């Protein structure tokens, strides 16, 4: 019968059987007629007619033999058989499913993060045609994808490679919470053509357009476009949000639309909550219009995204740009920029902006994320190895069963099919659970990847492709390790196997797998220990100041009418008032907050008779108010702190390392330090050192860390807060026993002195530091978790391997026992077996560590990769795990009854 007919029968199976039944009914009727004619009663005739037909059921069976349905039913039966098999060994099933779930889930979660941060295309039409423009060739720095605004406008007019160029700028704005507390949000300022150029369509309402982006704002007032997330969070996705008003950094703007749900801005990892016209920048800078400055050389630097014309490549555009770059740079960059040797070899560059613009965030997290990806890939490999190991050891137990079944006539394909069905059930369950792990894992990981100063950061959905790939990989592994042994079992000679269980091969490949598992665990455990120790060391590292009792508050005092000296007076009044409250020990203001990851530095030199400064010193600098050192609990070693009347850069305080560098072996107090004028700072809008300064040292302070925890304290020079600096927003540092007490004291003072200013979210220096340590913490957390998983997996693997080995060797052990081997001898035999494996595993792991030490070293702080105590601790931990995994199989071996063991065969 042809396959086609069989297949047709599947669909007309019912038709066939009813046809036959009708025919049979006819036949019975005819037969009855005949029998009645020859004198039988109708009753007897029916019985006879049906008897001649035989059993009705039998008929149906025969006709359905040709059905594909039967074949399908057999398959289903295999599957059910497989499931039953799993129910018989639930530990095996649960261990395999969990193992797969962890491997698949962790891989998907981490890769989704990596993908969202570094690899994902912008969700707009033809993202490959987008281009980012910037400068390259900066000494010791990656290319910066920003250009002076005035240059971008000139480029728009003269370029021929792009459909158009648009301008983007990040901005941090404040919005009041419903209770009035101000919160910082990430916003994007965009040129009027930015959304059009990307090809983004509004979710609701409209996006920013050309008529919105005009100097001083459009006649209908400043518009704002919400991100989809913000719209849901703040308005519950209510379309009536359109037309409502928001107080963006204190100024009212009107909601005109919502950005597409999938669109998270052009900076991966830093999602703007609001989109405002680029010209809104002036309002955020107290009216200073950096887009249209008095001279074209001093316009603000912004990110540029262009869309290539059809047929033009990024290289073509680069060539066009290179032709005019000298003229453009000369015309639109400041003299400071042009003269600075760091920028001597700067050139304009064009790159694909398929993934958007590079961010500080992406640069900071890419290395740890790639490392983490490597780690979870390793764990996935380990999971696959473990599952296959489990399957192999299970197979050894079932070899006897297979042999019996082969002997009584089960076909090889049938055996393989049943075994495959079992593997498939495991793989399927593992993948399903893995999806759940991925979904939860991603949201679990996200908090570690928050921008320190922002409420929200990355938007990450588990990546479907990645899930499919890792699940596919795991399923294939499982199926392969299910198929291969079953195939071998089918091929083996049942007679030989049946004769003696001793004939079952010892799983050489199984032992190899266990050794590999141990090796990977060793690597993971060592790295996890090293990382946790660095983290502990980092967090415990003396910073030079009090982390737990200093609370930070940055109120928007720029909204107050006071300027200059009056503003400084206001800050001083706040400080004095707050310090009177019982909950506050001390308070001060500062320009830069420590531990935020940013600091400024420039060249200084010592001045004065007899002092030979060895060379110009690069000093980090900051402006701090009266009481700063007392508040931060940084000791003054010589001289004094600043006094309230000191409000200019005529005086300064050095930290210890700066003092001993500039004035080696001498007292620094009352000596003079000045900036090196030829190398003035290049930061636009530096309010502190706009002019060259010469200052008298009034004090020397103890060293303290500045930007980062993992860098040693830089040589630092402190200046008093000047009127220029105070025109920006200063940071209040409030030292008190409890955060709540400090908040109450500050709020009270604010109500008296500046009642119009809202509260901003409070954070202690410790909280700020932990946010900055996000990736370090995430990585440590994850590697510890995975190391635990790996250890558990190898323990299971070792246990399974030894346990099945003891089962296989029962006869041998029985003989040994019968020949007089004591329990101790047998125990030693099993332990020696385990230890040989451990030795191989540890050796392999050590080799692996040698290779991995390079990337790990970057993540370490204060511990070496080959830290003796860590290695010793790992060895101890491993020994403990091995001991536990070996104990039960060994005990079982030691209690083998020689008589019973030998009779069994």
């Amino acid at each position, binding site marked *: 019968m042809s396959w086609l007919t069989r297949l047709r029968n599947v669909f007309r199976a019912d038709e066939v059987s009813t046809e*036959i039944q009708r*025919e049979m009914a006819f036949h019975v009727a005819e037969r009855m007629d005949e029998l009645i004619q020859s004198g039988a009663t109708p009753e007897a005739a029916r019985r006879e007619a049906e008897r001649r037909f*035989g059993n009705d059921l039998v*008929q149906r069976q025969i006709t359905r033999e040709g059905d594909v349905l039967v074949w399908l039913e057999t398959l289903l039966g295999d599957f059910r058989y497989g499931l039953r098999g799993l129910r018989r060994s639930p530990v095996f099933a649960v261990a395999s499913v969990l193992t797969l779930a962890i491997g698949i889930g962790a891989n998907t979660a981490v890769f989704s993060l990596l993908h969202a941060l570094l690899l994902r295309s912008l969700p707009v039409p033809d993202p490959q045609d987008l281009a980012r423009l910037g400068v390259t060739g900066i000494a010791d720095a990656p290319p910066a994808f920003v250009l002076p605004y005035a240059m971008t406008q000139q480029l728009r007019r003269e370029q021929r490679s792009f459909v158009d160029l648009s301008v983007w700028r990040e901005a941090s704005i404040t919005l009041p919470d419903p209770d009035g507390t101000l919160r910082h949000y990430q916003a994007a300022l965009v040129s009027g053509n930015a959304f059009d150029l990307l090809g983004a369509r509004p979710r609701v309402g409209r996006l920013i357009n050309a008529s919105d982006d005009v100097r001083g704002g459009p006649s209908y007032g400043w518009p704002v476009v919400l991100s989809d997330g913000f719209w849901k969070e703040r308005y519950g996705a209510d379309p009536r949000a359109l037309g409502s008003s928001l107080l963006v950094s204190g100024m009212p703007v009107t909601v005109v639309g919502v950005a597409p749900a999938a669109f998270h801005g052009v900076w991966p990892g830093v999602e703007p909550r609001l989109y405002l016209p680029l010209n809104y920048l002036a309002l955020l800078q107290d009216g200073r219009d950096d887009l249209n400055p008095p001279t074209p050389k001093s316009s603000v630097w912004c990110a540029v995204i262009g869309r290539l014309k059809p047929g033009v490549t990024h290289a073509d555009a680069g060539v066009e740009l290179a032709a005019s770059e000298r003229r453009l740079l000369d015309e639109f960059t400041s003299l400071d920029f042009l003269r600075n040797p760091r920028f001597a070899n700067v050139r304009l560059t064009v790159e694909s902006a398929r993934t958007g613009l590079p961010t500080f965030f992406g640069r900071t997290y890419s290395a740890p994320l790639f490392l983490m990806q490597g780690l979870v890939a390793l764990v996935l490999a380990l999971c696959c190895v473990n599952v296959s190991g489990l399957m192999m050891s299970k197979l050894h137990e079932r070899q006897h069963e297979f042999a019996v079944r082969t002997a009584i006539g089960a076909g090889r394909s049938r055996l393989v099919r049943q075994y495959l069905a079992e593997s498939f059930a495991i793989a399927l369950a593992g993948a399903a659970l893995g999806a759940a792990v991925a979904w939860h894992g991603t949201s679990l990981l996200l908090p570690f990847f928050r921008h320190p100063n922002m409420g929200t950061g990355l938007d990450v959905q588990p990546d479907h492709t990645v899930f499919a790939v890792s699940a596919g990989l795991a399923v294939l592994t499982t199926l392969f390790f299910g198929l291969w042994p079953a195939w071998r079992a089918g091929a083996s000679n049942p007679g030989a196997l049946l004769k003696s269980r001793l004939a079952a091969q010892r799983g050489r490949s199984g032992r190899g797998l266990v050794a590999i598992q141990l090796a990977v665990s060793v690597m993971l455990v060592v790295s996890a220990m090293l990382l946790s120790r660095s983290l502990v060391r980092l967090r415990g590292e003396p910073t030079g100041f009090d982390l737990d009792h200093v609370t930070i508050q940055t109120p928007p005092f720029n909204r107050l009418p006071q300027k200059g000296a009056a503003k400084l007076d206001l800050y001083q009044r706040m400080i004095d008032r707050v310090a009177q409250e019982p909950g506050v020990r001390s308070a001060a203001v500062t320009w830069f907050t420590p531990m935020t990851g940013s600091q400024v530095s420039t060249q200084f030199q010592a001045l004065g008779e007899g002092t030979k400064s060895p060379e110009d010193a690069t000093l980090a600098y900051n402006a701090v108010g009266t009481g700063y050192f007392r508040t931060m609990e940084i000791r003054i070693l010589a001289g004094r702190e600043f006094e309230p009347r000191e409000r200019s850069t005529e005086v300064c305080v050095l930290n210890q390392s700066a003092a001993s560098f500039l004035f080696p072996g001498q007292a620094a107090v009352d000596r003079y330090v000045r900036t090196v004028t030829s190398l003035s700072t290049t930061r636009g809008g530096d309010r502190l050192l706009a002019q060259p300064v010469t200052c008298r040292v009034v004090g020397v302070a103890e060293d303290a860390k500045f930007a980062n925890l993992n860098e040693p304290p830089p040589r630092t020079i402190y200046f008093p807060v000047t009127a220029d600096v105070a025109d920006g927003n200063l940071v209040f540092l409030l030292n008190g026993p409890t955060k709540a007490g400090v908040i109450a004291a500050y709020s009270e003072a604010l109500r008296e002195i500046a009642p119009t200013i809202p509260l901003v979210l409070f954070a202690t220096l410790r909280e700020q530091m932990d946010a900055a340590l996000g990736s370090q913490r995430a990585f440590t957390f994850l590697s510890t978790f995975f190391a635990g998983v790996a250890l558990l997996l190898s323990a299971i693997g070792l246990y399974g391997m030894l346990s099945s080995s003891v089962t296989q060797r029962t006869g041998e052990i029985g003989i040994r026992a019968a020949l007089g081997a004591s329990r101790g001898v047998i125990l030693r035999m099993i332990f020696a077996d385990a230890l040989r494996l451990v030795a191989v595993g540890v050796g392999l792991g050590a080799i692996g560590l040698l290779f991995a030490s390079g990337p790990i070293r970057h993540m370490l702080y204060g511990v070496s990769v080959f830290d003796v105590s860590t290695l010793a601790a790992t060895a101890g931990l491993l020994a403990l795990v091995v001991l536990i995994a070996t104990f039960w199989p060994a005990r079982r071996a030691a209690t083998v009854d020689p008589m019973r063991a030998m009779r069994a065969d």
Partner: protein
Amino acid sequence: MAAVAKPRNDILQGTLALLVLKTLAGGGRMHGYAITAHIQRVSADLLRVEEGSLYPALHRMAQEGWLGAEWGLTEKNRQARFYTITRAGRRQLQLEEESWARLCSGVQRVLGYA
């Protein structure tokens, strides 16, 4: 796998198709009951068709393309499925007749030799 019930057959295994084809080759259009009756009558009650296996066999033969089948009314006005032999059926008949002849002569020789 569904157990294949071995029909207890009064007709030698494998000859049912031959008999059906031969019957239809001479008699034109017949239903199952008539085929049974014809075989029984022509063989003078020596051969009896196992009725349970006839209909599945007829279906299989129709699927192989040896028989044509259609529903129709009998002279007693009953619904019945009428079978005719096809061109492929006649070829098959020829093959089966030849192999039957070979089998018979083989068996004859064995019997004669003994």
